């Protein structure tokens, strides 16, 4: 198969977009959810002894949760709009 016909079969630009968006979305989602867990666990651990640090961890968990919820909403909107 010549390079020209291969390019015709595969939309390289579209494929590249899928690859980098999937990489960013998949890793970002995992990072955000892991931060929710980390923030929640650490906030619980420091709740009585170091309330400021506990609050910071709780904020981290909340931020991560918002990213995860945003990803879910975006995912549903993709399903609805296709």
């Amino acid at each position, binding site marked *: 198969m010549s390079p020209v*016909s291969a390019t*015709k*079969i*595969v*939309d390289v630009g*579209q*494929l590249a*977009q*899928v*690859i980098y*968006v*999937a*990489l960013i*979305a*998949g*890793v970002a*989602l*995992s*990072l955000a*959810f*892991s*931060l*929710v*867990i*980390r923030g*929640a*666990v*650490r906030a*619980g651990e420091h709740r009585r002894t170091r309330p400021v640090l506990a609050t910071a961890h709780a904020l981290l968990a909340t931020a991560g949760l918002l990213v*995860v919820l945003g*990803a*879910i909403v*975006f*995912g*549903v909107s*993709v*399903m*609805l*709009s*296709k």
Partner: protein
Amino acid sequence: MAAADVILGIVVATALAFDFTNGFHDTANVVATTISTRALPPRVAVTLAALLNFVGAFLSLAVAATIAKDIVDQQLVTTTIVFAGLVGAIVWNLATWYFGLPSSSSHALVGGVVGAMLAAHGTAAVHFDGLAGKVLVPALIAPILAFAVAGIAILVCYRVVGRLAPGPVSRGYRLGQVLSGGMLALAHGTNDAQKTMGVITLALIANGNLAPDAAVPTWVVISAATAIALGTWLGGWRIIKTMGSRIIKMDPAQGFASQGAGAATILAATHFGYPLSTTHVISGGVMGAGAAKRLSAVRWGVAGNIVVAWVLTLPCAALVGGVVYGVTRLFGGGAAGPVVVAAAGIALMVYVFVRRLQRGAAITTTAEGVSP
């Protein structure tokens, strides 16, 4: 009743049977990791997946009502070709279920229709560049991409939660699996139930029951949603076992990484209009989440068998589709051919199910980690 109406009835019933096997076969994509890490009890997991598949089928009806669009000449598709293609896909779904191998139901349907088209009209009716661009290249990209995404994702997860107590971390990732599994089930219902709706709508248009620009009838939407949900609810336990515990023995973080990365990959691809198989993505994700932790954690023999099944999906479904079309035509252009093939198919399916359940009850219903 005219012969065309009989054929239409058989095509509708066969399409719903395919939809059922699609749900039954692809349950594993959604629930295997959830069950394997005990995020949910097996029966609860498949019931939730079935409900979300049902709901997902109603989310969007925008997918074009065409079969194997850009892959075969749409003008030459007849109800008999659709019937033969569906039988090819059902046979391949049942064969891979019998051996507990995850494979793409969509590729099986495309393969069946291509085989029937080749038997009916020869190579001129098949667009091989479309076949390469819409089926073969995505089949290559999907598992590799999901492997990479899940592999990086699990390393990130371990890095972030590495020093925390394992109990709350596992509980957290199990909750995450319920969310990511729910998204996958919704996406599966939206994508796959629409294929059946498209098949039935096309058959109704071809038979003159609907205008060419008609919307998908409500009874078609409800019956397709019900068939895929019922298939999902009954669950292909053999494939669930393969995906959930035979490729890698996974912890909740790996389960979340493979499912979350899989959901992100599928939705990213959907957003850009690039067709990726859910089965290929989730299988690749499971392998990636295992290999990133330790290469030897992946049972590469099982992974190899799965890849062989993927490679064989298109040609085998095409072969069955072509043979079924040929057998159907032996009885002439009337309804006799589809009636005989449908009756033989039902008898074969009942025989295979009974034989499998008799011989494989220990695997299908009571294996470790997949008990319903």
